[in-house]
């Protein structure tokens, strides 16, 4: 029966082959997960980075008094009667003049040349003029937004073939754009406005920005932080330190772990029914969004806070009680400060989760098209009561538009969102590393 250990028998060989196969499956699974991650992030980056650049046309624009301020009084009320429709031809003429001055020839009609300028540009110029009426009658240099198609051409999204089928542009316009670029009139610059400007209508993707969405998200995070943190910490303290073990606390515990797994959209229904229909808070407002996200994040914060409290050894509590502190004092003076880094980490992760959440916000009306920056407080709509959108909802909104230029912006918004999340998680990891304590 004794066989030598130095020779491997056939059966062992077979078993070792099975072992290798099994290991390969495991490695394969990891590879699939990693490849998915790389592919996901890679495609988001490659589709979205373009939107951080924006094409501008630098033009010297004459602002003729005859058209912008017929009265000559520089009275704002009179001047504001000239709408953007009155400004558009001025910009068109400036561009046509610039083309002529450079000695470029094109088959395009003046109207089609004008189409190379974004519809938003007229509004930009008008606002500048109304803010400073003295500009009328002078020639001012403006950096005007190029239209989405011209912008797309320089980013490779629009080509001569696609332009031939497009009503909004033409291959000739692209040729002219290229010549203008070579002449230094058209320039592509970093798109700071993307983070500042509000959303724009379907016709002018080049002007759409995340300003309102970032502000709305910020307001909601403020609401979540101010509500979820104290409530979460208070209820964790009760459950972990004071609650007797009975049916009621059992019920709360089961309830919390279940709430953590309730689909987020259900919280949206709750928000719609309770906060909007029943309590009659404002639709689309960061207050309602923040309340819904608070209820959603609460279980996450409670679970991590309880873990942090649990990791503080009982000897600390005993020591405090031993010198005559009350139970409440031992918790607030000793246990809570020691658990604070863990609580903070959990809170940041909860906030990050809330920042990326979309579905419930769709139901409480945050999909609305909002161009006004919401104020934090107004006397009519109260605290955080003005309509706003949020970063992830803005992404969803842009996917629903017809112009593909919005898709690029949706990806760019996702990149922005991911950068925010990255920062939050990095802070959480840093805090955890820095304050990690082994008992």
């Amino acid at each position: 029966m004794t066989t030598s250990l130095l020779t491997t028998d056939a059966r062992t060989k077979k078993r070792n082959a099975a072992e290798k196969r099994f290991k390969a499956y495991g490695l394969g699974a990891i590879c699939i997960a990693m490849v998915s991650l790389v592919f996901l992030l890679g495609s988001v980056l490659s589709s979205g980075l373009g939107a951080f650049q924006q094409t501008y046309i630098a033009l010297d624009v004459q602002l003729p008094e005859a058209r912008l301020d017929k009265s000559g009084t520089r009275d704002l009320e009179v001047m504001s009667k000239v709408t953007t429709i009155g400004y558009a031809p001025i910009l068109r003429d400036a561009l046509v003049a610039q083309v002529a001055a450079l000695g470029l020839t094109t088959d395009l009609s003046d109207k089609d040349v004008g189409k190379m300028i974004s519809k938003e540009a007229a509004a930009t110029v008008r606002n500048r003029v109304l803010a400073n009426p003295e500009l009328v009658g002078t020639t001012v240099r403006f950096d005007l937004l190029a239209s989405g198609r011209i912008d797309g051409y320089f980013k490779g999204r629009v080509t001569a073939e696609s332009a031939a089928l497009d009503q909004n542009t033409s291959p000739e316009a692209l040729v002219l754009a290229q010549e203008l670029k070579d002449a230094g009139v058209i320039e592509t610059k970093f798109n700071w406005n993307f983070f500042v400007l509000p959303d724009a209508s379907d016709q002018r993707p080049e002007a759409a920005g995340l300003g309102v969405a970032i502000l709305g998200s910020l307001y909601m995070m403020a609401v979540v932080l101010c509500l979820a943190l104290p409530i979460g910490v208070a209820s964790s303290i009760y459950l972990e330190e004071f609650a007797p073990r009975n049916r009621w606390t059992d019920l709360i515990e089961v309830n919390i772990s279940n709430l953590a797994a309730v689909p987020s959209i259900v919280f949206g229904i709750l928000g719609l029914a309770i906060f909007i229909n029943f309590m009659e808070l404002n639709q689309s407002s960061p207050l309602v969004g923040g309340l819904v996200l608070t209820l959603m994040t609460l279980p996450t914060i409670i679970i991590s806070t309880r873990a942090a409290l649990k990791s503080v050894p009982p000897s600390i509590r005993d020591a405090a009680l031993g010198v005559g502190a009350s139970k409440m004092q031992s918790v607030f003076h000793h246990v809570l400060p020691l658990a604070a880094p863990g609580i903070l980490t959990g809170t940041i992760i909860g906030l990050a989760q809330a920042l990326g959440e979309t579905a419930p916000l769709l139901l409480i009306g945050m999909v609305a098209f909002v161009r006004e920056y919401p104020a934090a407080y107004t006397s009519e709509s109260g605290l955080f009561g003005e309509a706003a959108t949020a970063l992830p909802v803005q992404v969803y909104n842009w996917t629903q538009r017809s112009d593909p230029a919005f898709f690029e912006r949706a990806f760019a918004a996702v990149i922005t969102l991911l950068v925010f999340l990255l920062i939050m998680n990095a802070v959480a990891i840093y805090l955890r590393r820095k304050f990690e304590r082994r008992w």
Partner: protein
Amino acid sequence: MQSLTPLLLVITGLAVAGYFIAKSRAMKVAGGDIRTLVSLPRQHALNTVLSTSVPALAAILLISLYLRLTGGQGSWFFGFVVIGLAVTGFATSLIGIKQDRRARTLAERWILGLLIFASTIAIMTTVGIVFSMLFETYNFFGQYDWRNFFFSTTWSPNFRGNSDLGILPLLWGTLYISFIALAFAVPIGLFAAIYLSEYAGPRMRSVAKPAIEVLAGIPTIVYGLFALFIVGPALRDYFAEPMGLGQSASSVMTAGLVMGIMLIPFVSSLSDDIINAVPQSMRDGSLGLGATKSETIRQVVIPAALPGVIGAVLLAASRAIGETMIVVLGAGAAARLSLNPFEAMTTVTVKIVSQLTGDTDFASPETLVAFALGLTLFVITLGLNVFALFIVRRYREQYE
């Protein structure tokens, strides 16, 4: 809303004033020597602040709720009640300041009350969810036959009335997509967890584990965008069209695959916990008999961990069923009962979104059906969660 602001100001003012008055009064009672006091002046002050504000704020909360429920208007009477409560608390706590008064115990009683209140918010949330949906679902079934809702195989809402609102095609889409997602995520997540906990060296672990966790931290809207613009068109161009299975970029397959990617970290981290809970002695026993690692894993570790793994899969299933953004962007909007995974289908969550966004009329069954759908979704996921958590908990106890 606005009528509350003066009330809140009055309460805050009283509380702040109470803090300082109580402190100085306590010092006076002590005759300048705080050692003669049972409780510190600070604790008297805290007691005054809490006695003033807590009952008054609680009254505001209750009265607002009462007014909402009865549809009544706020009146001077309620204002007096609130102010009265605040003043009473203010006065009694100040008058009560004596040398032997146990202000600390009293203050701590208020704090405990606040802690208990905070811990009931989780319960109130659940109650709120259930009631808000039950109420509107009841209204819905008042207008639409529940048998048609549960058993009809067509979904075609029509805002002029005469809608068919059968849940079956939505449930089918939901389950089909979840099935594909799980079929993708469970083997990969499980194998990844096994590899990481049983084979991988520390270097590999330190790279792969955080990378997989990153997948978990990505918001679902990002996955939705990925499905809509990248995966959907790719599946259509390379699989569906060449195979003659359809021309739609939104499909069950698109949503299922992307959701599968989303669920990988969920399955793997849960399985990782569960596999690590299997005691090392069990592995040693098997290895000591001359079993290979894979034999040990397949025949000892996995069977031992099976209940936990099943619980993890059920939790993942509940996550898949309730997922919204990926299916809104990736699955399509057509309610259909079909087996072809490359066709667009729709889910319960997609329809909740589409029925409740835009102009909604809370009297029509086309809007109210969303609440019935929400309730159905809630009941299904709750059932799965309770069952899964029960299994996982029992499993953990087994090895503790």
